[in-house]
């Protein structure tokens, strides 16, 4: 039986991972307040379930999984945004910007439907290979490839289009996301 190692210090998890988790949450939620709520929810859940951690090297992935699950629960039941018809052969003309504005990228992510958003975040943020994305989302590899191609195409189109209003970020949902409080296990 593998040595479970020392118990996880959740306060240390906060210190080590809160920034990356917040950024991930912000990319998913699209707003500062929702991202902070989601991040807090992740750590509260982690506090209750830290006994599940067997390998301290996998903590970040474990936190990402909690975050994705919390987010998935929060948007379950909402109507997905429709994905536009895209020409997958088309890449934006001109040179690729080496430095993409963070808020502009967020506006582009916000324009994606939830299915695309999760695939894109797993690919870009977590840098997971397509096989792992398929396992994580429990969908076939072919579906992952198809979604990735369409989502990335839509993302690039959104990035090269001029913004509708200066600095405006198109939020996908009118209402705030609601993250259910983790159930007590103690």
């Amino acid at each position, binding site marked *: 039986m593998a040595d479970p190692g020392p118990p996880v210090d*959740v*306060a240390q998890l*906060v*210190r080590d991972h*809160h*920034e*990356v988790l*917040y*950024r991930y949450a912000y*990319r998913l939620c699209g707003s*500062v*307040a929702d991202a*902070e*709520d989601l*991040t*807090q*929810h992740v*750590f*509260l859940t982690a*506090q*209750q379930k830290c006994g599940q951690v067997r390998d301290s090297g996998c903590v970040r992935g474990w936190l990402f999984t909690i975050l994705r699950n919390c987010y998935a629960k929060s948007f379950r039941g909402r109507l997905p945004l429709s994905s536009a018809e895209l020409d*997958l*052969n088309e*890449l934006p003309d001109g040179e*690729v*910007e*080496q*430095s*993409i*504005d*963070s808020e502009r*990228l*967020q506006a582009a992510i916000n324009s994606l439907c939830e299915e695309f958003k999760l695939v894109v*975040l797993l*690919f*870009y*943020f977590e*840098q997971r*290979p*397509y*096989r792992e994305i398929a396992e994580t989302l429990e969908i076939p*590899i072919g579906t*992952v*490839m198809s979604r*990735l*191609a369409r989502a*990335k*195409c839509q*993302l*690039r189109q959104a990035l090269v289009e001029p913004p509708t209003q200066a600095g405006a970020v198109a939020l996908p949902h009118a*209402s*705030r996301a*609601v*993250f*259910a*409080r*983790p*159930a*007590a296990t*103690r």
Partner: protein
Amino acid sequence: MEKRTREAIEACRPHSDDLANPEMREGAEEIAHDPEARVFYARVQQWDSAITAAMQSGSVPAGLESRLLSALRADHANPADEHAPVAAAGEKPYASISDDVMTALAASGESAASLSAAERSYSSRRRWLAACASIAATIVVAAFLNAWLRDRSPLPLEEQAVTWVDQLSPAWQDISRAPSGFQVPAALLAAPVTWQWMEQGRQGVAYQVETAAGVRATLFVVKSSRTGLPSSPPAMPQSTTGGRAIGYWRAGDQICVLVVPGDARSYRALVNPAAAPLA
């Protein structure tokens, strides 16, 4: 360029060896032999590098770490109720934790640690009070049920008396050893000759009584607070069914139930309603 090739190229992470995977063989060959595919692959990789870098950038709100730590301490001191209602749509679900903590900190200037200790103390007092209230409520309910069950007979006394008769043992005991506290009423025109405990334990005694003429009957004397009974033997029995005449009344802290074989006339031969309730 084939759709499958495009999708394979899009699935390759920047600066990775994803193209070497078996599923990518077709795409890899096309990139090797088709200049258009090669250009497409190179540009997608450029885009992916730029997007990946931007994706992981962005500022983090000031004080986020301390707010998260405060929320964890508060949650640890007062763990979530499993059955707590989920926040309604549009509500901030953790306002009761993080916002309250931050507001209290700002107002009092206390450290998060001392506030957490105060919350723990409050939570402990609240649990203690809840436990005391639960115990008190249990005692009250138990007392009420005890009184209610003691006074409440599931059957009318007529029917209860028939049951008592059926439960009698043939082993009657000598009257000289009858227990005190279960007095035979003086209104009876019969004297007790034998006795036995009833099945209710030591809460009731059954007597065999006999008139001077040798007519026998059974008298049950039971401790009870049952109300609504006559205070002396009724002149006529309350029940005359099944070849038995049954009359009952209250005498002090006990009830008396007289079961006489026969009809109302047989019953009247055993009671004197004008007499005092107890001997």
